[in-house]
């Protein structure tokens, strides 16, 4: 009750101008707040909804450089042919400048030759267009433009006597493929249970026919061991391999595998 009295007393004490001024001020504050809100919404300060970043493509730029020629290339089955411009040309025959008596010589002091007088011998005179030099120390050899080049040797100094391949990359690929084929046959061959000393003396040679699809087409026993058990095991091993597919040669050297394979079946372990 008391507060209502005070309120009504205070309100009545305000002039109309003061009330209008207060209302105007309040309106200005509200307008300013609204303007601030609008400004904040238009600025970059507002919180954006999280969007997942699109996947970035990663361009790959590669500047190719031609491979250097393999550095080790000694030996080879084909002899290298040098460019024509590198071929050794026959040397030019030059003749030492010499004088000889002539009936056509002028009889003046200027016509006296300064070069030495040629010795009279049976050698033929030089051709009229021959090249002449004051002094010739040249010992002429036979021209050998087609001689075999010496830039390529017979093989690699670190090679083996039995080796035939002069490309080390191919030689290694052949070696590894050979090991793979041996493992393939080893997985199929188990020597018979014979005394070790006797078994180590036995071996059989077989020639295997390989089809175009790398399958074993058939086989021929070139030399049997002479032991019935061992030869029976060789026969069963090879019979089991017929129709099976040999491992493929390395793609960089697909011609390694030929239509026939020579294998020798033997036991080579030491006896205890």
């Amino acid at each position, binding site marked *: 009750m008391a507060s209502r009295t005070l309120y009504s007393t205070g309100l009545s004490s305000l002039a109309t101008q003061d009330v209008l001024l207060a209302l105007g001020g309040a309106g200005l504050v509200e307008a300013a707040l609204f303007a601030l809100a609008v400004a904040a919404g238009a600025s970059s300060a507002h919180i954006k909804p999280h969007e997942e970043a699109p996947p970035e493509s990663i361009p790959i730029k590669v500047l190719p450089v031609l491979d250097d020629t393999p550095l080790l290339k000694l030996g080879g089955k084909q002899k290298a042919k040098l460019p024509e411009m590198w071929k050794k040309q026959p040397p030019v025959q030059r003749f030492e400048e010499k004088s000889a008596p002539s009936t056509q010589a002028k009889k003046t002091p200027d016509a006296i030759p300064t070069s030495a007088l040629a010795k009279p011998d049976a050698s033929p005179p030089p051709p009229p267009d021959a090249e002449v030099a004051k002094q010739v120390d040249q010992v002429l050899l036979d021209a050998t433009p087609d001689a075999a080049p010496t830039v390529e040797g017979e093989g690699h100094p670190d090679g083996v006597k039995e080796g035939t391949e002069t490309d080390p990359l191919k030689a290694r690929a052949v070696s590894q493929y050979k090991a793979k084929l041996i493992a393939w046959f080893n997985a199929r061959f188990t020597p018979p249970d014979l005394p070790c000393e006797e078994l180590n003396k036995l071996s059989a040679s077989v020639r295997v026919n390989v089809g175009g699809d790398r399958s074993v087409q058939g086989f021929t026993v070139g030399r049997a061991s002479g032991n019935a058990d061992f030869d029976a095991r060789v026969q069963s091993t090879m019979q089991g391999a017929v129709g099976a597919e040999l491992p493929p040669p390395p793609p960089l050297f697909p011609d*390694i595998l030929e239509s026939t394979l020579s294998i020798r079946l033997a036991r080579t372990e030491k006896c205890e």
Partner: protein
Amino acid sequence: MRMNGRKIGLTLGLWLAALCVAAGAAAQTAPAQASTTAPPPDESVLGELLVTGHKTDKLPRIAILPSLSADLEDVIVRSVVRRDIELTGLFELISDSKAPVGLYSFDDPVDVPEWQKLGAEAIVKVAARPKGKQAEVSGVAYFLNVGKEPVYQKKLTVDKADVRVTAHRITDALLGALTGRPGGFASQLAFAARWTKNQRVFRLDADGQSLTPLTDAADFAIAPMWGPNGSLFFSSSHEYSPFGLFSLANGSIKPVTLPFKTSVYGVAFNKDYSKMAVAVAEGGKSTIYVGLADGTGMTKASTTELATHPVFSPTGKLAWIGGEAAHGSTRVYVDGKPVSPSGFGASAPTFCDTEDGVRLIYSVGVGNDQRDLVMSDDQGRGTSRLTQGQGSNTYPACSPDGRLLAFFSTRKEQPGIYMMSLKRFTTQLLTSKIGESLRWAALPPTK
């Protein structure tokens, strides 16, 4: 009816035994010729092979020369090449700690006698030398039986940002020099994986780096497949619409025009990208059509009521997962013939052009919601398990050189993409991402 593990194992064993008996019978009846005619002297490249029955498989020992360079590019290249070569399982790598004392700058000579004492057959030297904004990446191979001069070297000058992928290219070239078969590390993987409510297609480098989503998060994408020149094909559905075939090339996704209005569940290309196979929904079933790579000339190729997951072999054979609508079991079909054992739900076949020939690898259900990977030749003969008792293993994908197999696995309570050496059968975790439809293809060659 649910089969328990023991019964499954017994059935699989019987099936394998039957295969062995059949193979043996075939060998017995093969038209072999045996005679004792003396053969002509051997003059072939391979010479005479000595077969002793001794079953050993010795790995060649090689070394990767240490590097004293502090350049970041050099460190990256060397670590990438070393890890790649380790992953192949082809070599026994000599530890850096055993390296002979000496100088190991790029231009220093190789101490051949000391490395030979360690049993090294070959030595690999790699380096990356910064040249302004670019780097010169080199790889050199030495065969110690040949001498101290390198037998092979490759050099590439690239932007520094491309050093990692260039290191993979150097590895591939060095493997070609060491084995005659180039490597497959300059390659990329693609797979589909969950992304909130949808599924997206991701790509990944062959060493597990650079995982990147490729498809829109608002779409449901499945069955990615690498196409020509590094392009990617996949099926995608937006807001439950039928799955359509799309291609992603040079950063833009475009629909592929096909003569089908129903969903396309998968796509495959043959080796030279001249043929395309698609799995299409038809009357509540699915059919595989084969046509030209541009989607024209499509003709029906599958012979089963249900046919999905088409894939071509390197020799052009078409495989798919086939089944009958009335039965739940699915089998792998190659050129119309089932090649996987019946009774085991097979899925996700892939072909690997391995060092031992073309192999077919797929996953089979082995009970308890577990799946394992099995491998056979491309006619289903000689089946062997690649995984066993190590979680569920699915979606095999082969590296371009056929030496590695990637797959999803839940093993060791550490699910992710694993990589297996098909030479040593050792496995390593590549990344912890799990998904489906894993695919692996070579990067486009550098221009």
